[in-house]
């Protein structure tokens, strides 16, 4: 008897779970001139408080302040599987112009390492607005204050321990590319989270790390770490003395694309509407403030230019990761 009852309970609970799962909408035909006329489903493929989330909420805030989107916007964090879930949500709403999401590094790396059922090429690309670059830092106690100091130290030591987040990730590609081109050997130690990465540096376990400027700048200002190199195309406004990788002649320093996408096969009128609207958004003061506060590099590319950019970046990621044997 208990077993039978268990079966019934399991069945009813499964039913409950199925019912809650059925929320996916379908594409609806409408007059292109009326777009947008419905509530917008804004998917954040990561958790609250992360880089992707903050950008999404900033854009939504600007859209509301400037009254650019006439209907309601519902922001939802659909995190899981390194973005696979959130962007998978867009995939399952193919053709729907009322589902939208923002991109990040995982938009390119996750399909490279797992069978997501989609790649960056499947989606409708609206535009790229900025890139997220990395700061290369050493602990203050190391006494290494310039990039040249570091390279000399690394060559002397034979092999240095460097850290970053994850293996199939921007961090790893950057560390490997820098070591390759500057001619020193590294032992790359992957971490799962920023907190443990930074304490590994401060405890003297690691010789250097790459970190997001937003999360490490506090320690740069207090003098706990020395910033040696910035991987973006231009120097950071907050750290004008720190050279970029490009100035030092390094290539292949990839960055995270911060852009906007619609589901696969979204209608052209929706894409055009969003390109026109986002052109207004990136001109606002609120957007500039956001870029400055989060130390992002403005890099604006619309429509097909964004598509080309994604293809290039993805090819570079794949090449670097294959060379390093990570995938």
């Amino acid at each position: 008897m208990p077993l039978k009852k268990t079966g019934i309970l399991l069945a009813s609970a499964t039913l409950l779970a199925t019912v809650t799962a059925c929320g996916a909408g379908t594409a609806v035909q409408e007059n292109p001139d009326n777009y947008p006329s419905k509530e917008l489903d804004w998917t954040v493929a990561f958790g609250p408080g992360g880089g992707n989330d903050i950008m999404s909420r900033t854009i939504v805030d600007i859209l509301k302040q400037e009254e650019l989107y006439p209907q309601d916007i519902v922001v939802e964090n659909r995190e899981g599987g390194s973005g696979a879930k959130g962007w998978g949500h867009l995939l399952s709403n193919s053709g729907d112009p009322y589902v939208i999401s923002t991109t990040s590094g995982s938009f390119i790396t996750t399909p490279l390492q797992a069978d997501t059922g989609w790649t960056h090429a499947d989606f409708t690309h609206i535009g790229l607005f900025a890139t997220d670059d990395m700061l290369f830092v050493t602990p203050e106690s190391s006494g290494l204050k310039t990039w040249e100091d570091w390279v000399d130290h690394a060559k002397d030591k034979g092999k240095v321990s460097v850290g970053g987040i994850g293996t199939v990730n921007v961090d790893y590609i950057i560390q490997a590319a820098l070591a390759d081109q500057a001619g020193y050997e590294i032992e790359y130690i992957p971490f799962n989270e920023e907190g443990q990465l930074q304490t590994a540096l401060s405890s003297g376990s690691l010789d250097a790390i790459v970190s997001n400027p937003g999360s490490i700048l506090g320690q740069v200002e207090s003098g706990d770490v020395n910033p040696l190199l910035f991987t973006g195309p231009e120097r950071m406004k907050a750290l004008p003395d720190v050279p970029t990788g490009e100035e030092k002649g390094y290539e292949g320093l990839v960055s995270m694309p911060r852009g906007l996408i619609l589901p696969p096969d979204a209608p052209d009128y929706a894409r055009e509407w969003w390109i026109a609207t986002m052109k207004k958004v990136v001109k606002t003061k609120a957007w500039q403030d956001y870029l400055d506060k989060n130390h992002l590099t403005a890099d604006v590319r619309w429509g097909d230019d964004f598509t080309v950019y994604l293809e290039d970046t993805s090819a570079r990621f794949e090449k670097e990761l294959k060379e390093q044997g990570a995938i």
Partner: protein
Amino acid sequence: MDIFANLVNGIIGVLSPTTLLFLCIGVLVGMFVGAIPGLGASAGLAILLPLTFGLDPTTAIVMLAAVYYGAMYGNTITAVLINTPGDSAGVATILEGHPMAQKGRAGPALVIAAAASFVAGTIAVVLLTITAPLMAGMAASFGPPEIFLLVVIGLLTLVVLVGRNWQRGLISVLIGFAIGTVGIDVGGGTQRYTFGSTELINGIDFIPVAIGLFGLGEILWTLYRGGHRGGATPMRLDRRTGPFWPSREEWRLARGPIARNTPLGFVLGVIPGAGATVASLIAYSLEKGLSKRPERFGKGAVEGLAAPESANNAAATGAMVPLLTLGIPGSASTAVLLGGFLMWGLQPGPLLMAQEPEFAWGLISSMYLGNVMLLLVSVFCIPLFAAVTKTPFRTLGPLVIILCAFGAFAVNGSVVEVGIMFACGVLGFFMRMYGLTPAATVIALVLGPIAEETLRQTLLLDGGMEVFVQRTPSLVLLAVLVLVLCAPLLGAPLKRAAAGFVRARRPAGAAGTGESGDAGDAGTDGPRGTPGDDSGSGPEDARRHEVSGGG
């Protein structure tokens, strides 16, 4: 002193009717969110954080601190009443909390937990105020080798959890390790046991496993034993023991553990990584080790509830140290808070307290006020929650299953996780049937992957295994480890002698586990010794406590 002036200023800063209202709402919302199985403090914060976008940082932080504490207490409620922890740090709470509820002492268990949390929270805030800079240095010195050793110490406490039946305990731990290997291997980037599924690439989350093993597993087990046929159901409150205030005896037993484990929890909480979980486990095993009658543990010993609750709460405050002084999140909840800092336009880092004193001290003071508010709210709400145990199992059981499914779904909105939860429910049932220890499985699942990751990081660092003896903090931890390993060898004969001594003295000195109630319904009670515990203590003993206790 200057820092206390800062603290007082901070408290005055947040003491306005509006913020108090926010505090109250935050605590209530947090409590209810936390009371849903699986939704812990970090989930509660993540749900509410987006609502604070664009708010003034100080107002936002008041509400979030309140939610933080509310949710932590909400977790305790579910842990005690339906045997399901809300986060990994809550596993130790269920070990004694739930047995207490089964014995009809749900009310006292919840009051003790609230009081332990409050006292620990208060002391921890004072410790935070005084020792933050010192502690920051400690947090910064914890690299992979130290975190690995700390996790190993935590895993050693499993020996205490599984008790005498070590083969079955070992199997339970290995099941946990096995589940923990699923997902992308952070060391090499290869996928392990994901079968190509994107849902599994981040591994199997602790939450659905814990809800399944504890919550659903318990329901299935109760059904199997015929609990739904009414009568003597383990979920029901014994009608004769109605009081919700703990007896004086229970207060007395809880005092020592709270005093001991608050500083312990605070110090371990400062360490980024598994601080709070390890702290609550060590606190539990410490009390079991110190106890003169360890055989009471697992059957509803008050000390075993007060210890992890105070350690857990102190650790939550300790986790604020690296966040405020270094800008480094030490736990899942503080990681969400760090995201909040960025969202509100603050720059986390070592200079935060100097540059934004109003905000930093506002945060510390609202944590304290959150504690006070929590105590007040919980005193009003406990009778309500404790009434849950009076609900017949045939009503409560299905409700709990729905809550379990909802909780498993709500955390990540994943149907796959609901499936995992049900699978673990069945696993939990069979584990109970064959005498395995679900608590050991869950702890192994949480600590196993951290141990693996940090050990591999340590081995990759130059120096290999020697690193462990080359670094001072890791040497200290190694010494602790050796101590923990040797203690049972040396302790066993001593304890046996002590136990013999206690038994000899029992007729005079022994008390029940504090089963004495208030004077009102005492007359009709008769003997109240816990079955199998204190059969020696008769009516006389009980009456003696009625006179002295009667809270």
